[in-house]
């Protein structure tokens, strides 16, 4: 046998522990993730209405998607959500984490940290219900609130120019508890010596944050940045419930378009195509962000 092949076999045997450890995960993922996904993606090459008949049409779906103005509109809308999730969605947890970090009392830290984690118990449905009510131009509180700032009554979810940002704003105060935990844990991991050194040198707080904190936790920030991209691209539940993509196509996002193509328009093949393209886009965005943002290791 070729010596290289013997080496490969030997190393596989040497690492048999690794493969054994991986087995449960791979079996589970293979059955419940990969198989359905491959089946679903395969369907993007078919005209499939969700039933038992599927006609192979090659790249027709992709060509149609390429020409589809609605899809481009949905991508444009998604880019707003992604932009917001990646900027405010990263800055707010950072801001709160820094505030927590600067608390002198460990007990206060514990209390507030627990409280922020507990915000995960707020069901999304409730958030949507409350905001839909607030945004109602007649009975909701939003118009009364903004009139205090001299802004005239708006249509919010029902208005062309306001619908998208109304949905984005319903995430107020934009503090994702898990992101917060990750960033806060990272801040706590910064060696105390570095911080003490900066205080000795008379560094102001703002300067310290910029030159020490952020570079040290850049890895975590990159992580939640990428998670923000994925979330912004995929999520559509709020858009589905609050406006169903309307008015017109103002709040249509690719995830919602995919859902509608499948379950409203009976075109599951096309829905798979949209999913396929979304997947490619997310891979590309993740890859690019990974390369562009320098990790703290360097």
């Amino acid at each position, binding site marked *: 046998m070729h010596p290289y092949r013997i080496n490969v076999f030997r190393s596989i045997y040497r690492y048999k522990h690794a493969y054994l450890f991986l087995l449960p*995960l791979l079996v589970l993922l293979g059955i419940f993730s990969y198989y359905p996904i491959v089946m679903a993606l395969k369907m993007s090459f078919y005209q499939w209405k969700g039933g038992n008949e599927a006609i192979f049409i090659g790249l027709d779906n992709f060509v149609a998607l390429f020409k589809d103005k609605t899809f481009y509109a949905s991508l444009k809308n998604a880019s707003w959500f992604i932009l917001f999730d990646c900027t405010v969605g990263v800055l707010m947890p950072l801001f709160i984490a820094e505030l927590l970090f600067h608390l002198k009392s460990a007990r206060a830290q514990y209390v507030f940290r627990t409280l922020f984690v507990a915000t995960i118990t707020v069901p999304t449905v409730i958030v949507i219900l409350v905001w839909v009510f607030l945004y109602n131009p007649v009975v909701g509180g939003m118009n009364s609130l903004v009139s205090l700032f001299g802004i005239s009554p708006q249509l919010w979810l029902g208005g062309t120019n306001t619908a998208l940002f109304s949905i984005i704003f319903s995430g107020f105060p934009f503090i994702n508890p898990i992101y917060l935990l990750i960033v806060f*844990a990272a801040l706590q991991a910064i060696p105390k010596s570095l911080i003490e050194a900066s205080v000795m040198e008379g560094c102001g707080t703002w300067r310290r944050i910029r030159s020490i904190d952020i570079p040290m936790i850049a890895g975590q920030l990159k992580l939640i940045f990428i998670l923000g991209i994925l979330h912004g691209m995929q999520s559509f539940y709020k858009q589905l419930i609050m406006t169903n993509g309307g008015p017109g196509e103002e709040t249509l996002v690719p995830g919602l378009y995919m859902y509608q193509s499948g379950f409203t328009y009976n075109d599951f093949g096309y829905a798979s195509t949209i999913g396929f393209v979304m997947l490619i886009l997310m891979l590309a965005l993740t890859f690019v962000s990974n390369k562009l943002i320098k990790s703290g290791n360097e």
Partner: protein
Amino acid sequence: MASRASKKVSYVLIGLLSLFVLFSFFPLLIMVLTSFKSKMDVSLGVFHLPNAIQWDNYSRAFETVVPFAWNSILIAVCAVAGVLVASSLAAYAFARYKFPGREILYYLVIALMMVPTVLVLIPMFKLVAALGMLNSYAVVILPQIAGGCIIAVFLLRSFFAGLPEDLFESFRIDGAKELRILRSLVLPLSKPILGTIAVLNFHSSWNDYIWPLVTINDKALKPIVTGIMSFSNDYATDYGPMMAAYVLASVPLILVISFAMKYFVDGLTSGAVKA
């Protein structure tokens, strides 16, 4: 002098943080407020205070939610346990061994994060129907474990990779088997991350709605979300009891979080989870 200034800073910090906590919990407060309202009160507006406290809402919610609570608890516990076991084993393998195919397999696993779930609903249903798994706990638990493992492996691997090598040296010298190292050394250090993962997965399992809806028809096996949604239909939604049901359903979730938070308090040694 310095301490008085820092005391003022502390108050400002606490004030600011309290404000943000309030904003974050605001919908929850509305939820609790609404759970005490009658139908008439609900129609008068979200901020309107109830004329009389409707305890009846809670008894109605109790009847519809409690029968399903056990199902949800069982499902969530099994899902969390499954995720913790499978993902810590796999993440350890990814982090500590340079085996052939490591990078490819890892990125294949991570890439699953980018697949929209709605896409796979129908093919996955076809699969489980063909496997004869419908109307069981397994049909809900196993996909939840599969889904939860993806980000768990991601978080755990970077954590494990960040653990200093010398910690392992002492154990290795003793000739300890790998599983033992994982169990006695690595996992205790990873409690905070494991706690986070447990909370995340318990939460997502608890709120899983569509998948149990299509796969479980047997009333005895349905999860708690079903009981909550029973107060709403196309025509109208009975918000009072529904909010009460949400409050009741939040209780186990809050218990799990407080339990998991203890794991965080034990401190972090390296606590580095990077991308």
